[in-house]
């Protein structure tokens, strides 16, 4: 029993954090938004260079063979930075799913290019009504009647669905399913699709955790600067208590998130409930933190000029991405009402 990250895990996340701190500040986001774009090619090239595309793909399939626990802090960093590019969806969800079908020649060929960082892949999973980043992805893994098809975006019809988040590119996908597009029948697709949902929900939660901390940090920075009645507003208890309340949410979402990451590979009722709990807790933290930050900023908080709205909007988007509140609460209920409860079962797993 040791509830701590290894030095290597933290070091890897630090490298990502430092890179994003250099190349993904709100000024960078505003520039990109001004260009009407959702991908900064120079930044994406640097991210690709880090070689993280295959983080969660097994070594014998050409990946790094890491686990969710190795990637969770990276996803938090992406949330904190408000990263527009699809590092989390591509490396965290799509490529491990694609790798599950690597017996299929088309899937294997695409995986090789994706691991090299030449292309990205995205997923149209039943948990989500849309597919993200379809415009820049080479191909989409689409589920039809439980079976998985691999469709080149060039051969499908993508209809853009504008998102409140200026950096999310959402689409509905239409294509002609055929034997040529099929990579896995319903009987073999179930387990990998469930794993994709777990990863998607976990890493969405991780981004929410990053978003929450960023919102508090922005609020704290402003509360130290802004003076009213001759003092920084952050010296007043009314303001302090708002921010402290948000930070408490963050502090108690974090261990749930990290336990969920550590338990993800179990793939059982217990780990699914923990992941869902993490999604709920981190979503709650992000919601409270974003609203608190806006309140602390006063009228500025409602302005386009202050950066909080980037994080508010990403939070709104991720709240229902990979399952909303009702969906995840039911997954928690499935564990609570079907398995023994109590302190001796905190780290339980299916035998």
């Amino acid at each position, binding site marked *: *029993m*040791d*509830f*701590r*990250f*290894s030095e290597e*895990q933290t070091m890897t996340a630090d490298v990502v954090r430092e890179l994003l701190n250099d190349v993904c500040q709100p000024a960078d986001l505003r520039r990109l938004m001004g260009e009407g774009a959702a991908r900064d090619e120079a930044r994406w090239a640097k991210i690709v260079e880090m070689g993280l595309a295959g983080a969660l793909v097994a070594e014998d399939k050409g990946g790094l063979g890491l686990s969710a*626990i190795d990637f969770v802090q990276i996803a938090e960093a992406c949330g904190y930075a408000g990263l527009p590019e699809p590092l989390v969806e591509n490396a965290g969800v799509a490529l491990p799913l694609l790798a599950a079908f690597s017996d299929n020649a088309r899937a294997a060929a695409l995986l090789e290019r994706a691991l090299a960082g030449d292309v990205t892949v995205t997923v149209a999973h039943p948990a989500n009504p849309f597919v993200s980043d379809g415009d820049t992805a080479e191909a989409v893994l689409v589920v039809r009647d439980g079976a998985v098809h691999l469709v080149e975006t060039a051969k499908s019809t993508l209809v853009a669905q504008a998102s409140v988040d200026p950096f999310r590119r959402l689409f509905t996908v239409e294509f002609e399913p055929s034997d040529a597009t099929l990579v896995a029948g319903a009987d073999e697709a179930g387990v990998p699709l469930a794993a994709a949902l777990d990863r998607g929900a976990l890493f969405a939660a991780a981004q929410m955790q990053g978003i929450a901390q960023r919102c*508090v940090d922005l609020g*704290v920075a402003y*509360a*130290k600067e802004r003076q009213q009645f001759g*003092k*920084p507003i*952050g*010296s*007043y*208890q009314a*303001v*302090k*208590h708002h*921010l*402290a*309340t948000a*930070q*408490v949410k963050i*502090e*108690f*979402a*974090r*261990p*749930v998130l*990290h*336990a969920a990451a*550590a*338990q993800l590979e179990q793939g059982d009722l217990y780990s699914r409930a923990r992941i869902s*709990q993490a999604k*709920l*807790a981190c979503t709650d933290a992000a919601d409270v933190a974003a609203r608190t930050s806006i309140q602390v900023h006063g009228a500025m908080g409602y302005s386009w000029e202050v950066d909080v709205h980037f994080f508010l909007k990403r939070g709104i988007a991720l709240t229902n991405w990979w399952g909303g509140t009702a969906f995840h*609460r039911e997954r*928690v*209920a499935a564990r*609570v*009402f079907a398995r023994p*409860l*109590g*302190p*001796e079962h*905190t*780290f339980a797993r299916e035998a």
Partner: protein
Amino acid sequence: MDLDYTDEQKAFRQEVRSWLEKHVPGKPLPSFDASREGFEAHRAWERVLAEGRWGMVTWPESYGGRGLDLIQWLIFEEEYYRAGAPLRVNQNGIFLLGPTLMEYGTDEQKARFLTAMASGDEIWAQAWSEPQAGSDLASVRATAVLDGDEYVLKGHKIWSSRAVFADWAFGLFRTDPASQRHKGLSLIFFPLNAPGVRVQAIPQIDGETGFAEIFLDDVRVPVFNRLGGEGEGWNICMATAGFERGLMLRSPARFQVAARKLVELFSAHEAEIEPTVKAAVLQSWMDAEAYALSIYATASRLAAGGHIGAEASTNKIFWSEMDIAMHKAALSILGARAELLRTAPEAGDIGRWLDGYFFSLAGPIYAGSNEIQRNIIAERMLGLPRA
């Protein structure tokens, strides 16, 4: 990160479980805050624990402990609450003062006080607050005047938990009469039966007498009863408060067991209650789990040489608010029966939820009000300026 127990930890759990199965009283003990009888029944239980060397498993063997680590302490607590064992009447001693004595006491003080604390022979009350020093604890007025090798204590303490029946109390006294605020305070122990001590019980919201006023009128105690140096009381006291809020006062198992009972209550009444209650029940379970996971993370960090910081304050806010939410959920499941006292023929064991609800309302107040905790978080974690 390794979230599995080692074989050694699993074996330890079994050892604790089988000992508790043999020794935990079959019937719940009467409250230690309502009568001398209940208090003494809990003292007797402390002695049983001490004989099995289960009183304080993290303490060194020389003071009646087992020298175990914090993960083993958590396992012990999990089994303790799982078994429905009695609440710890000496929590002011073993969870607050004990760890502080261990850190700041001389060998002679440790030998004198820790052993009797672990054995239940001496039950402790705390004497932090005064009528004019609550959240503003640094404005303590009670004085300790040095006279030879004795201090003469004078003053008025209030909200002293366990003081009605306990044997000893510890509190802050101004040893330097010219001093202001945090300076010039010392942490001093005094027997509650010493000449010049008068204890006046304060009835609580639930009718019990869990706290009291203490009037000290020229109470003489040896200098030996001062913990740490003269004038160092504030810093030592903050270390005590940190440990209390941070880790030991409310172990997660307590809430996980309450959450389990809440789910059982919900399942028994599901057909009659409105659907929104289900969300509150699930939230309670999730919060209890979150608190447990958080404490495991803290314990792992401390085991690796880390120190407890402002998370002592986040913990205190979290468990106290969770405790209220849990009991509110239970009362909403009980509906019109929620108001029944334990003694009502129709009550069954409903009454304990009402008792628990009352007690939960004290949570955001004692051990440093949640407003003070939010100030600490804002200033020490977030770096916001002091007022």
